[in-house]
């Protein structure tokens, strides 16, 4: 789960693995400083989020998404034969195309099944800010998927 968050933010499997490993090492080292102001899970994800952001900043040039892989490859297959698995892949790719903030919110909300309050604790954003980001992210995803569908229908 920690790896998933890192992967979605950094968008590189190798670096995400490093970031996730660093997260656990940092958590191990800082365990004595953990205070019960939040749950252990939220605390761990806060470390993961910051570590992933650091990695993403450092390796910005390496991690930018290859646009060619997202839409073009899918456009070759017809909509009628797209199965659920392929649709899920399409969603994953669309999520990966979101900005870091929106991607983080969607991942924590859907994949980690966290509440808005928990996400606020991890990211230090306000709850209303997170709601706005979530709304924008979902709308972006919807329009990306709609765009994909139209392209597939044309092809």
């Amino acid at each position, binding site marked *: 789960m920690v*790896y998933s968050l890192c992967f979605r933010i950094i968008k590189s*499997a190798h670096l995400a*693995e490093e970031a996730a490993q660093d997260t656990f*090492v940092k958590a*191990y080292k800082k365990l004595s400083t953990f*205070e019960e102001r939040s749950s252990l899970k939220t605390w761990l994800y806060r470390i993961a989020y910051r570590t992933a952001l650091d990695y993403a900043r450092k390796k910005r040039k390496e991690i930018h998404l290859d646009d060619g892989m997202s839409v073009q490859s899918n456009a070759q297959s017809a909509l009628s034969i797209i199965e659920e698995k392929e649709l899920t892949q399409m*969603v994953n790719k669309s999520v990966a195309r979101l900005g870091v903030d929106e991607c983080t919110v969607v991942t924590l909300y859907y*994949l980690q099944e966290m509440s808005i309050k928990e996400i606020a604790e991890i990211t230090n954003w306000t709850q209303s800010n997170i709601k706005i980001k979530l*709304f924008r992210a979902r709308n972006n995803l919807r329009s990306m998927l709609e765009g994909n569908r139209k392209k597939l229908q044309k092809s």
Partner: protein
Amino acid sequence: MIDYKAWEERIWQYFDGHLAESEKEALLRSLEKNDELLAIFESCQSLHSMLQQDKPDQPSPSFVSGVMAKINSTSLGTSGRSDWKKAGWVFLAAASVILLISIYLVVKDPESGTSQYPVLTDFVYNLTEYSFFRNLAWLSSGLFLLMMIDQVIIGTRKRQRSIKPV
């Protein structure tokens, strides 16, 4: 003219479970009357269910062993460093205590200018004739005090902040 953005917001609130019963009914009634809204609703529903079914990405099989290796190397490195640090502090503390006692014995009887320990007095006199050693003595004493503060105050804080079971 229908404000679709506001409706979209409401539809997402519906899926998030943030709408009251009366608001839900009003939304569903509106969907029956407006095909465009219904299309938006279905599109949101489809995305919502796809996102809910989304599965976590898996790291490589060597992930856990990698974490353990990193933790082990960190622990070893830290303990090695802390041992050296501890030894350094002990040496410094011992040196500063000896110097402090020596200085005290030298200036113990300033009127007579004599000391109970003439050998030690001579030794310290010779030693402190050089400003380097005098400064070293003061520096050691200062560091010794810092060490005591670190142990007593910061050490206590660290102990107080230690983890409690969740």
